[in-house]
């Protein structure tokens, strides 16, 4: 099942490209939309909602054309925006019920579901408080509640853990996973935080500079063959990274002097049978570097992301 599809979609803000010929398909379930700030994630979501008109390209959400059926689409989706957003002058339950009514629920049903959803997101005890008095974490939760109240078929969550403390973030991610796994809702989680996407989603679409860098099931992307090593050397680390890259190995530094090196299954110039760790020793020896630490590691989404966007 495909919930969202984009075909060569381009969006510009003035002379700036926000999305450039983006083609992607979002399967059902929980899909992460991953990328650094400014990659075009929020623009993509706003374009899918019909809030930003594309310069060219076709978009479909739940098999409906965004250009011709924006209202039908918006009736079936829930949107949790990135920035703080609420209807001023309302308490939480009135606000959520109001959003339910705007989404097409009858008044009584909207109120009943508002109570239920507020309990679900953990704001049951605070539901009669004015939203403007809420903390950042509570505001994130109520944004999720207003997106859920009309029981959408697809949720767009734009940076849902922004500004939350670790415990709140954990609870929010738990909620998101519960929504996708136990409640059967499809969701698209836009985030620049790799652990959030890795925790809550099965598929990921990685964006960079307004284009799709890579996409697919997270497990598949992480296990694309080859091996990942944690490597620390004594000497000029930056120069050695250049050496590794020149040898066709993907490499990015993490914190301090530790780097993660991805060794493809058959790296050119070293023969298919060479043990992958040997390559690193050989290169270090050739360039007078001392290997201080070399440990095989499991591929993470961070590696996928770094490879996709070419992060140093």
């Amino acid at each position, binding site marked *: 099942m495909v919930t969202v599809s984009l075909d060569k979609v381009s969006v510009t*803000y003035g002379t700036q490209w926000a999305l450039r010929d983006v083609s992607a398909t979002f399967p059902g379930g929980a899909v992460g939309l991953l990328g650094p700030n400014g990659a075009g994630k929020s623009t993509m979501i706003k374009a899918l909602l019909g809030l930003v008109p594309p310069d060219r390209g076709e978009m479909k959400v739940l098999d409906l054309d965004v250009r011709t059926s924006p*209202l039908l689409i*918006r009736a079936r989706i829930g949107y949790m925006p990135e920035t*703080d*957003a*609420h209807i001023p002058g309302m308490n939480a339950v009135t606000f959520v019920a109001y959003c339910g009514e*705007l989404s*097409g629920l*009858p008044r009584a049903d909207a109120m009943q*579901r508002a109570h239920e959803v507020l309990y679900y997101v953990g704001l049951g005890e605070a539901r009669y408080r004015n939203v403007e008095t809420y903390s950042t974490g509570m505001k994130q939760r109520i944004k999720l509640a207003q997106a859920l109240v009309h029981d959408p078929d697809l949720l767009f969550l734009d940076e849902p853990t922004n500004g939350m403390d670790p415990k709140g973030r954990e609870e929010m991610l738990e909620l998101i996973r519960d929504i996708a796994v136990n409640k059967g809702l499809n969701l698209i989680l836009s985030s620049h935080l790799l652990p959030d996407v890795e925790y809550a989603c099965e598929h990921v679409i990685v964006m960079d500079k307004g284009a799709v860098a890579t996409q697919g099931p997270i497990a598949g992307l992480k296990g694309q063959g080859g091996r990942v090593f944690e490597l620390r050397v004594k000497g000029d680390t930056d120069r050695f990274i250049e050496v590794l890259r020149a040898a066709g190995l993907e490499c990015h530094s993490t914190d301090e002097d530790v780097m993660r090196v991805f060794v493809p299954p058959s790296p050119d110039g070293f023969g298919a049978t060479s043990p992958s760790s040997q390559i690193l020793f050989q290169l270090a020896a050739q360039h007078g570097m001392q290997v201080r630490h070399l440990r095989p590691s499991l591929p993470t989404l961070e590696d996928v992301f770094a490879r996709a966007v070419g992060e140093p």
Partner: protein
Amino acid sequence: MPIHDQGYRRYAGRREPHGRSWWVIARAGIQERLRERRFLGLLLLAWAPFLVRAVQIYVASSYPQASFLAPSAATFREFLDQQSIFIFFVTIYVGAGLIANDRRANALQLYLSKPLTRVEYITGKMVTLVLFLIGVTWLPAILLLLLQIIFAGDVSFVRANLFLIPAITLLSFLQVAVAAMTMLALSSLSKSRRFVSLMYAGIIFFSAAIYQALRGITGSSVWVFVSPEDTFDVIADAVFRIPGRPAMPVPAAFLVVVILIAASIWILERRVRAVEVVT
């Protein structure tokens, strides 16, 4: 089982058809205002002139010696003129925050991510203001006409002044439409309702002052078009058939009204968007 498992279930109930969200917005806006005692006080105050006029009509109908108080077409024209001050205050009280508050709270992206159009959103906001404004202009004026019939015990006055019903309706609705559209446009320009209030008051008073100054300097009333209030006087005199030479041709006065409404729509079209693009 985590507690949140008990709180969410799929919804299989009825869903309303599209196109009714404007009323949801308007109803919420009306209810919010009616919860405020200060605003209820303002509404009561706005009906005080109605009570005075009602007593006037009653006395004139009941006591022949007070026939000099009998209403004429000019009475209704004066009544609507008196209500202008309440149009001003109600417009500021209700209208200033209608869009400005939503912009401050980033609510536009919430509204416009729901199945409603920008036109529905603006309509909902406008209906909130328009209903209150009609409640202090057209409604009391028509009720006065009704009271005149009741107290006089016949319809001779209305029959003799049949134009009054369309005149009251036209003038009230024009005043209300211009006040509501102008205020909504101003409200969409800022995130502060106080600033919007100041802008609106500034436009009303500043334009009138400029007109008076230009008239004083040039000795000509041709500049009346710069003042919406004075332009409405021209229209009011014409529709209530008040004799006298208008400060400007009546079609030109209507044109000023059309231009004001068109300018407001132009501003709203540009400002009411879920995504503000700064290039």
